């Protein structure tokens, strides 16, 4: 690793430290497994370090950092779905610490979470990032547009299409079922 220039020393304090919690939570909300979340964060940090100059110059660096975290989380999700389809349940169960088989409600909730995550993993990368930034992170469209490097209109279209696809794929789920179970 090259010796950091003075700007690099302040990079963390200025840009990462204020959004540490948001970064971790963004990744967790998609990955939902401690080890995979740790790996996804590691990947995201590697990309952040490599693109630190770009991030510094970016009009909305925090949105870009969060987008990188979301992308790393989505990549982890896709890899898990692609390479470890049989381990998903056990990994998820480990992450959620569902050890009591009698806890049917929690297991049912886990199953529904997995279905949602699989649906998100099926979305195109940019569309998934737009949907998650908008719906999960509650970011404004203009911030998403800057983070994704496209126009606000494009983001709206991506979010709309993403919503429509998810709605189609998840139409079998009973609306509000998760809310009822989580109460």
């Amino acid at each position, binding site marked *: 690793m090259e010796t*950091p220039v003075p700007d690099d020393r302040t990079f963390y304090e200025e840009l990462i430290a204020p959004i540490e919690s948001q970064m971790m939570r963004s*990744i967790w909300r998609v990955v939902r497994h401690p080890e995979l979340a740790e790996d996804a*964060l590691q990947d995201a940090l590697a990309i952040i370090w490599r693109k630190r100059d770009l991030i510094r110059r970016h009009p909305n660096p925090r949105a870009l950092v969060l987008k990188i975290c979301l992308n790393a989380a989505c990549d982890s999700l896709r890899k898990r779905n692609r390479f470890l389809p049989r381990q998903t349940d056990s990994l998820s169960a480990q992450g959620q610490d569902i050890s009591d088989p009698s806890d049917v409600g929690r297991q049912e909730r886990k199953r529904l979470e997995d279905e949602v995550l699989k649906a998100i993993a099926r979305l195109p990368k940019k569309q998934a990032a737009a*949907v998650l930034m908008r*719906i999960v992170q509650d970011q404004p469209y203009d911030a998403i547009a800057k983070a994704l490097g496209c126009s606000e209109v494009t983001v709206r279209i991506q979010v709309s299409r993403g919503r429509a696809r998810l709605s189609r794929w998840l139409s079998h789920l009973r609306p509000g079922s998760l809310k009822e179970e989580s109460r």
Partner: protein
Amino acid sequence: MKKEKPLAVDIDGLLKDALHDDLPAEAERRMQRRLAEFKGMIERPAQHPATSPARFWQRLFLPKDRPSAVRWIFNKQALAFLSIFMLAVGGFLQAIGHRSALAESLTSLRTSVSVADSIRQSGFMECRVQMAAKEGVRSDYVIRWIQPGMTRVDVQKDGEVRETLWITNGEVVIVDPLKNLRQKFASLKQIQDSVFQPVLGFLSPALLAENMDQRWQLERFEQKTGSHQGTLTFTNHEKGLFLKMIVDLDTFLPVQISRSRLSAEHGGPAEEVMRLDFTWNQPDLSQGMMLPETLGKNGSAL
């Protein structure tokens, strides 16, 4: 601004609820540790030397600190592109049956060496040599490798044997049956200017193989698809000759050699001056072939 259309399923609610913010302590601890390492790496880079193989590979494939050329070489996308490109080129070359110059050169050389080895190992052979007619008179030769160390060459004009050359264990004898003369020579060098000069390079397996290895320059090897024969092409610039050797690829022995003059214009063959047809069988000795021992003494009449 266009209002977002409500969907049959409350996707926003479903996503927010399914992906709710419930970061567990263990996951937070793990990620905090990663962030602390990252912060430490930025602030104290010297304390994090890349020593383990995993870090080495990580550095290789996250090569911010590599020179641009090395970075390109070890860039994953570049490697993937290169692999696909090489596969495509390989498939294309396979499809069109193209062979590289290097591969062709190696094949030519391998075939030539195999043929020379097969000739060296052969014990007997009969070869009919047709020469281009000179001033209307045509002289042909029949070369017979009777056994190792024993060769007989007949010069024929108008279908009649005029002279016979015998080589037995280094002893060279020329017999003129018409004049009943026999001449003995110490070596082949002494008959360089004789009527046998055109076939001196074919008098024994060792001589022919030596010519192939040392005197003739190998040009190329060609083989037609499905054929059991191939053609080796040689040039002998010293004597201005172009040689085409048709080879049986089952035995790696020559079937025919055609010798032409080398064209000064295009470097290829001009008119054919000599053709040798080989038969790799034991020569028939029952046709009144005389052995030198039955002849009279050196230079004497029969």
